[in-house]
């Protein structure tokens, strides 16, 4: 399979910033796909299980494409089945670290995490990394259906009120904080914007996500948001001292070992085909 590429001349730091972004997109989509797959069973409607299964397939497909870009553009090889990285090496959004307790977690991941990634991908369209731009159209088309699913469930649980809405708000609060951290401190990606690899910085993308989420909710304050002069922000701002730029996270954790074992097929090594 050949894929034409354009390799812009980048300095070391800019190149590393781009590489860590692609790894973070790949890792997060892998974990997101895992959770969608996990909720093929046990959803509140059989159609929701079918949708979750379909979204899992698409997220795994996106991971596969990002891993090809990593190999071709950065000579970094990530094969989920043969990956030996420790959980603390993953650059995924912390909200995805553990098994989801309820459907509310799935909906929160769907509407927050799954909407954050397309914002980042879209920012690279028209930038110098052709290999991202050439796959973005199709990815974003598939993501539109993920958003339709997420929006439908958020509106339904909001309308229903009571325990479903409270559970959703609790899940959203955690997903929003972890995903906000993923976007990083202001100006952390200034070099990528200056190099014209992306057309908007992550701080502005985070703002866009929070505004979009606030518009979906009757009372955005219940999920830890507050309205300010620039739009909606976190009521309790994040402290950035411990932010790890390689992992785009604030904490030292990582995905549960049991989840990584399942993703890697650890129990079925003897049956591997390659």
């Amino acid at each position: 399979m050949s894929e034409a590429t354009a390799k812009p001349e980048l300095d070391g730091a800019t190149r590393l910033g781009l590489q860590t972004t692609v790894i973070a997109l790949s890792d997060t989509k892998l974990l997101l796909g895992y959770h969608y797959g996990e909720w093929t069973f046990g959803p509140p409607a059989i159609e929701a299980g079918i949708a979750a299964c379909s979204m899992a397939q698409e997220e795994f497909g996106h991971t596969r494409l990002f891993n090809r870009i990593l190999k071709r553009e950065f000579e970094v090889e990530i094969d989920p089945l043969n990956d030996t990285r420790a959980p603390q090496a993953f650059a995924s959004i912390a909200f995805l670290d553990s098994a989801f307790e309820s459907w509310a977690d799935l909906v929160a991941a769907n509407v927050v995490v799954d909407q954050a990634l397309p914002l980042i991908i879209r920012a690279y369209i028209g930038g110098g990394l052709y290999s991202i731009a050439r796959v973005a159209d199709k990815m974003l088309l598939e993501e539109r259906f993920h958003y339709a699913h997420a929006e439908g469930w958020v509106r339904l649980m909001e309308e229903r009120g009571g325990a479903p809405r409270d559970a959703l708000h609790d899940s959203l609060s955690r997903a929003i904080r972890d995903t906000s951290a993923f976007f990083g401190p202001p100006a952390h990606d200034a070099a990528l914007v200056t190099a014209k690899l992306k057309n908007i910085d992550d701080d502005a993308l985070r703002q866009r996500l929070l505004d979009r989420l606030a518009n979906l909710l009757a009372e955005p304050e219940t999920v830890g948001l507050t309205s300010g002069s620039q739009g909606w922000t976190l009521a309790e701002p994040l402290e950035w001292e411990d932010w790890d730029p390689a992992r785009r996270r604030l904490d030292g954790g990582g995905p549960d070992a049991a989840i990584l074992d399942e993703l890697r097929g650890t129990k079925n090594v003897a049956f591997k085909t390659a």
Partner: protein
Amino acid sequence: MTQVSETEVWQALEGVNDPEMPVSLVDMGLIYDVSVDGSGVVEIKLTFTSIGCPGMDMILEDIRGTVGSIPGVADIEVDVVWSPPWTKEKLTDRGRMLLKAVGLSV
């Protein structure tokens, strides 16, 4: 040496079915372009219905096997492209008819 034409390649691809549908890759609208150079190297640009398509490798293998059996083909280069993305509007009339016949709303 036998000269291969683009028409021959298109005709061969009409015999390669999507593994999940009773429709050829051509009628699915998955083949975006075919070209053949003077030395018998065939270049095929194609896409898939979904990035997560589990049948990708199988389809590529079928293409290589089928097109590779045309006399005069020296090599096959397959370029998987994602833009413009596939939508059901890319189905041919025949593809639409066949899918309707198996109960799909297209």
